């Protein structure tokens, strides 16, 4: 896989995404970042829905554009150049519908998937992992909580029906989604075999969206608590066979994590481009700082690493598209894209200097977004473990 090309109609979509980003997303990114308390940019979401970009890789039978993973990643990168949070709203959609696509029943597909391709935006939320809401406690959620659940489960009145009580926290898209995908364990602190993935409409009786959670970055993609108050789960909400939860979770994490990698690329690219532009106009010791080799060589290293990361993300997407083994490549793409994004955004701040440290300067936002992305869809360390599991 030496170069990953996409057909020209997909290229057109990527260029359209770039144009939308320049005209509508970038100009509002700072303002969205600074609004406190999870407000949502519905105008942009409407616009994306209009162009059918809320889940562009959905097959046309569900109203989607049916484009490749690779083109989808490229679109996400373009949007993330403008605002990583908006891109994360889309990737959360994609991650949420992935279990339905790979393991859902035809009925589930027909019920939920077309929502995302409607001209009127309907979004999906995802909450697979649990978090202890105690600020003082070290929560390595990926290491600890995949197979654990604080949600209490009891048998429902009807056969096969389950009743859930408890809550999930830090659920992205929760306040704007029509439905959401989540996971519970039928035995508390039980075996991995007891995990079950389900899809639920947000208006299911007993489901309530709770408090807003303010985050370090990706603020235009809001996160909320979701409360379950004796929610009855009928069998037709369960995705996959009983006990298949972990498998479904891991499989779809692998399919989705490269998208987060693509968003990392977008943030890093935006930071790099801002730094490059600034270095050519900002004076340092009487000349543009770009003429200092300390600055220009740092930019060279940033560009070099960014390119290596992009190739890794594209490889993972191509492998998914070609139906080859992609799980290692997907984890690797997250590890490298996330670490490169953190490094590039920090260096970019140093190069931009002065104003970059003020709240509301784009460089400062890039740093926070990149850091936040490092935990989305599993931390670097978690993905290193996944890679290592195959040694």
């Amino acid at each position, binding site marked *: 896989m030496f170069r990953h090309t996409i057909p020209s109609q997909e290229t057109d979509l990527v260029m359209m995404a770039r144009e939308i980003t320049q005209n509508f997303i970038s100009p509002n990114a700072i303002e969205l970042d600074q609004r406190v308390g999870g407000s949502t940019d519905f105008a942009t979401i409407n616009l994306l829905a209009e162009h059918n970009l809320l889940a562009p890789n959905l097959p046309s039978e569900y109203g989607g554009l049916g484009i490749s993973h690779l083109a989808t990643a490229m679109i996400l990168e373009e949007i993330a150049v403008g605002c990583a949070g908006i891109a994360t709203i889309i990737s959360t959609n994609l991650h949420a519908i992935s279990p339905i696509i790979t393991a859902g029943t035809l009925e589930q597909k027909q019920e939920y998937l077309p929502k995302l391709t409607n001209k009127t935006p309907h979004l999906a939320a995802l909450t697979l992992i649990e978090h202890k809401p105690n*600020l003082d*406690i070290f929560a*390595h959620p990926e290491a600890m909580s995949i197979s654990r659940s604080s949600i209490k489960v009891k048998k429902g009145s009807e056969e096969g029906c389950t009743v859930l009580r408890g809550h999930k926290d830090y659920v992205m898209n929760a306040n704007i989604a029509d439905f959401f995908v989540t996971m519970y364990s039928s035995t508390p602190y039980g075996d991995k075999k007891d995990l079950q993935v389900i899809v639920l409409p947000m208006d299911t009786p007993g489901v309530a969206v709770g408090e807003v959670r*303010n985050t370090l970055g990706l603020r235009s993609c809001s996160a909320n608590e979701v409360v379950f108050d004796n929610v009855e789960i009928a069998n037709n909400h369960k995705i996959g066979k009983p006990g298949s939860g972990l498998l479904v979770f891991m499989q779809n994490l692998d399919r989705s994590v490269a998208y987060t990698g693509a968003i990392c690329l977008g943030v890093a690219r935006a930071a790099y481009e801002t730094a490059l532009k600034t270095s050519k106009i900002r004076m340092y010791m*009487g000349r543009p700082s770009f003429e*200092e080799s300390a600055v220009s060589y740092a930019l060279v290293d940033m560009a070099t690493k960014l390119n290596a990361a992009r190739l890794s993300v594209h490889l993972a997407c191509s492998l998914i598209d070609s139906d080859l083994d992609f799980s290692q490549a997907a984890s690797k793409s997250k590890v490298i894209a996330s670490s490169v994004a953190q490094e590039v955004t920090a260096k970019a701040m140093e190069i931009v200097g002065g104003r970059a*440290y003020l709240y509301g300067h784009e460089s*400062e936002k890039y740093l926070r977004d990149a*850091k936040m992305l490092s*935990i989305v869809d599993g931390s670097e360390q978690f993905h290193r473990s996944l890679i290592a599991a195959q040694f």
Partner: protein
Amino acid sequence: MDTFTWTEEEIDLIHEIRELATTKIAERATYLDSIGDETQDWVIPELLSRRNMLSPAIPREYGGRELSMCMHAALVEELAAGCAGAAAIVVANNYAVTPILVAGSKELKNEFLPYLTTKSPNLACTAINETRSDYNLERPEMSSEDITRILTFAEHKDETAIINGSKDYIINGSVAKFMLTLARSSESKQKSGLQFYLVPNTTPGIDVAEVLRKSGLRACHTVKIDFHNVTIPEEYKVGDGAGYLLLMQTFDRNRTLIGAIGVGVAKAAYEMALEAARSNQIFSGTNSYSHYVSSTLADLSTQIDAARLAVMRAAYYIDIDENYARVSIMAKLYATQVAQHVTSTAVDLIGRLGFFVGHPAEKYLRDAQMLSMIAGSDYLHRHILASQL
């Protein structure tokens, strides 16, 4: 062996400030961080003034604690462990006090220093940086511009000095009792034309032009200030004609304290990560992350210790008046980088919760980033240090 050890009183003071920093100050700082830095808050200055900690280097004769730089650095570290912004308030005061202590007249000292040692809190500031027309696509003709390019001008007339210009990035600036302002006192563009002026905040013509909303260090209010025909008595000149040297000395000395802020933030982040790992039984033998997490923490702790040593050595050189310019830059560079590395890694170790607003780890990360900006960029410090290699 010239080993430095603290006296018992000094240890008591360190403990007292640590206690204050990690309880009342940290609590207020978390609140201030959440509301942004639009206004000057007085809770933290009041807490500090009650302990006479607003400018603890001021000699006893002016009511201060007359702390050594070593002790000063140790206390700034403790304050920063509670809140880096609170520590920055104290350091900003010390920036303003330094030129007065080094070169001010007895009268100036008597008039102004006691403001910072009274029970009711007062702040001081330095107005040095200027927003430059740096963003200029065309390369300027003259290539001799440098960091001391100061455009604020002080005209001397009838035993007064009339200051016009604009200054940026002024911590404590909006409410400072007095402002150490750097200006050119003559038409000369040479460094020799620089002069410090002490400007009381009651002088007409001082305008807050902009409030800077910062990514971190939000507990210290920071502004841009315009000077319109600000007229002060000529006696308010500080150190006649030695402006450039005084500026360098002020920076060299206080840079060490910026390093101390870095050590303090890093320590706080490290201790939070350690505590989190402990309370989650990460170090129990059965946890597969044990070795990874513990050796990462061991690395952080190694670096924090080295940064503290670098800061303390610079402070010690200042106290014994050895050549401290070089070591103070190293202390600042190293401690800042360690702070940024440690706070970022701590967020990773703490995991998802550390990424949410309101968690201290997230604030440490933003505060540590800011340290690269105050008192000059890392590039600038490397530039100065390179000339001394």
